[in-house]
């Protein structure tokens, strides 16, 4: 066994150990809380997992927007930008695709519109950061709310469905993304589009020049400049890719699953923020994010069922999910934080 291979296996083993230890810690910490509140932890975990995966279509459809907002967080993170605006980028993608779908009835055009709208918004945040030194977290959070209320205005005032005033107009059938038939029930096609997007992103990040530039500027902007790369450009590019992916997530959700936005915004709200957890849980690796989004979706769906079967308040399931996710993401989040601080110092 050559030295290089041995190092690789050591790396491999460290990751497995790290994840296994944090998983055990998370589940145990959750178990202690459940047990102290008088619930049987194994019963609750059993429900969360068995009910979470009992309906594969629900599971994968629920995972789709999370997968894309996870990528929307991770791609900029690799380039050293903290994109908390996946929420707003998802909103703008969703509303753009809804409007285009409603007026043209063309699925491809609507998907493309959603992607471009998200990319434009992400690019704008990135440009503000790169050329005007506006903190991306501040501008992204402010834009999230501007978009939230703009969309609310649009669906309540302009795009409401006269037959069901609590929902926006639906996506016409011609622009909907269909269901792929499988034995034992069909699965919505959107998950597979999202997986393709993740694979393309993976290729882009690890097999192209652009990806290399992004990663180098993420690790050290100084070295990037020294090597002749422009770290400002990579900030903008990473935000364009990330924003576009979040926008695509919104478009897929609307065109392929719910077909309309409701006036309480429950359709869209929170998916971008969950994406941060998904991205960290997937170690900012597009392949890891595919898995972590499904894992996350399983916990959320299972968590809903905990109230039904065990009579526990819904907040309890959310707490347990939070604990598990934090425990799993903590080792990696710690590394990222260290890197972020180091990079920030380097700039000054």
């Amino acid at each position: 066994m050559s030295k290089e291979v041995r190092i690789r296996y050591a790396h491999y083993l460290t990751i497995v150990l790290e994840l296994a230890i944090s998983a055990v810690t998370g589940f145990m910490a959750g178990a202690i809380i459940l047990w102290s509140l008088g619930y049987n932890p194994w019963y609750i975990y059993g429900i969360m997992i068995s009910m979470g995966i009992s309906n594969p279509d629900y599971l994968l459809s629920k995972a789709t927007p999370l997968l894309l907002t996870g990528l929307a967080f991770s791609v900029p993170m690799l380039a050293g930008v903290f994109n908390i605006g996946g929420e707003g980028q998802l909103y703008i993608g969703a509303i753009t695709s809804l409007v285009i779908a409603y007026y043209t009835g063309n699925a491809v055009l609507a998907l493309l519109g959603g992607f471009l709208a998200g990319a434009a918004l992400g690019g704008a945040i990135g440009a503000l950061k790169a050329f005007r030194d506006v903190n991306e977290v501040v501008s992204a959070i402010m834009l999230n709310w501007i978009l939230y209320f703009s969309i609310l205005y649009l669906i309540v005032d302009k795009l409401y469905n006269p037959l069901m005033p609590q929902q926006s107009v639906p996506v016409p059938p011609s622009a909907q993304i269909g269901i792929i038939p499988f034995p034992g029930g069909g699965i919505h096609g959107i998950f597979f589009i999202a997986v393709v997007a993740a694979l393309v992103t993976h290729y882009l990040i690890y097999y192209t020049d652009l990806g290399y530039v992004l990663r180098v500027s993420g690790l050290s902007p100084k070295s990037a400049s020294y090597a002749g790369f422009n770290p400002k450009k990579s900030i903008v590019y990473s935000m364009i890719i990330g924003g576009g992916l979040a926008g695509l997530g919104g478009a897929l959700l609307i065109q392929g699953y719910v077909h309309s936005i409701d006036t309480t915004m429950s359709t869209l709200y929170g998916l971008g923020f969950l994406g941060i957890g998904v991205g960290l849980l997937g170690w900012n690796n597009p392949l890891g994010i595919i898995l972590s989004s499904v894992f996350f979706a399983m916990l959320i769906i299972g968590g809903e069922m905990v109230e039904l079967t065990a009579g526990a308040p819904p907040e309890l399931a959310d707490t347990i999910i939070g604990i598990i996710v934090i425990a799993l993401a903590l080792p990696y989040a710690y590394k990222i934080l260290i890197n972020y601080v180091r990079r920030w110092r380097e700039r000054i």
Partner: protein
Amino acid sequence: MNVKKAISTGAAITITIVIILAVAAGAWWWYTMSTPSQPKPAATTTSSSTTTTSVTTATSSSTTTSTTTQTATTTSPAKKKVRVAVLFDVGGRGDLSFNDMAYLGAERAQKELGVEVNFLTPKSLNDMVPLLEQLASSNKYDLLVLIGFLWTGPLNKTADKFPNQKFALIDSTTGVVRPNEMDLLFREQESSALIGILAAAMAYQLGGNTVGAVAGMDIPPLWKFHIGYLFGVKYFEMKTGKKVNFLWQYTGTFGDPQVGYTTAMQMLQQGAKVLYGLAGLTHIGMFNAVIDWNNEGKGKAFAIGEDASQEWYAPQYIPLSGAKRVDVAVYTAIKDVVDNQWKGGIVTLGLKEGGVGIWDLDGVKTFAELAYQTHQLKNMTPDEVVQIVKNLREKYIPQSAWQLVNELKQKIESGEITFKTPTTHDEYTHIIQELMKGNLNAALAKGSIS
């Protein structure tokens, strides 16, 4: 991170998650193997005796109506227990309104009818269709009760796929009549007409002659409130000969207290003495405007709540709340299943059925206690709230107004008059125009007022 490392990271994550899943699945399997020894929740065993009695009475009263359920009950009378799942609106319990009332209704059914009730809170609209499919295809529940309008679309998509699953939709309708779907709606015109009389009377007691309402969106349920409230005001005008100015404003939202505040302030500046809140969260802003108006010494004005009893929010300034008894609707739906009285279609609940009305002091107390438990009611106890509201009602609502209310209530409950429910916007505006002219009969589908 190089390419190989990136790939191996992905693979490592895969393996780990698979391991976690395997461990958890093992735990689940271990648990299911050991379930028989697991003690059942206490509630099941205690209420089983009441079930037996209710089932036997049902058997004796309806002798040979449906054969299938009969055989089921006779073979195992103790085990046949109606199971119900109540599916809340997004957000779930703790709203001190719709969802909490639904819970109260289900609790009552659990106690009085001996049914078993489970609850579920969906995360978003996206989850509603798969949850309905999952619950309906599990065949575990005799009835699924859906709370709130957000379920309308998802139910419309799923109801036809599960003809053997009964659904009850509260306060909304899919517009389609199905044998397995019961839509429970409220005749809000009836309660808001009574509120209109009292509001007008209170406005005169406060030294003014203007009443107003802060409404949500221009949608059919709100049309019914508009018609009823205006009818009540005009009824007061006709019976007492006193002129009343009527203000009505749609804010376009159920979720923005700020808009409710500014709208209410404008109405108060126009001289409104009593404001009726018909906009969910938006009219919390209206309450705040009324509180500020009084506290800043600009004059005395009152607010009226709706749906749940909201007097506890500011008992000095909120003497009344219109009742929309979601709890009664939930209970009615469950009772129909228990009594084998189930029929698909639209069921409306009005004053006669106790589905709408004005909250009495017991109701005020119930909600004050709920608010107290969740720490939303501060600085006073529920009993103090009841006392303040009682004094307020005695001081500002004259006996003559209660007489008018009782007179109208009697006419509605006896079925002497019934209100129209407009189906189009034109019909609604026409009714409002006629009412504004003083033509009360334009709002009535049956009977007349003279």
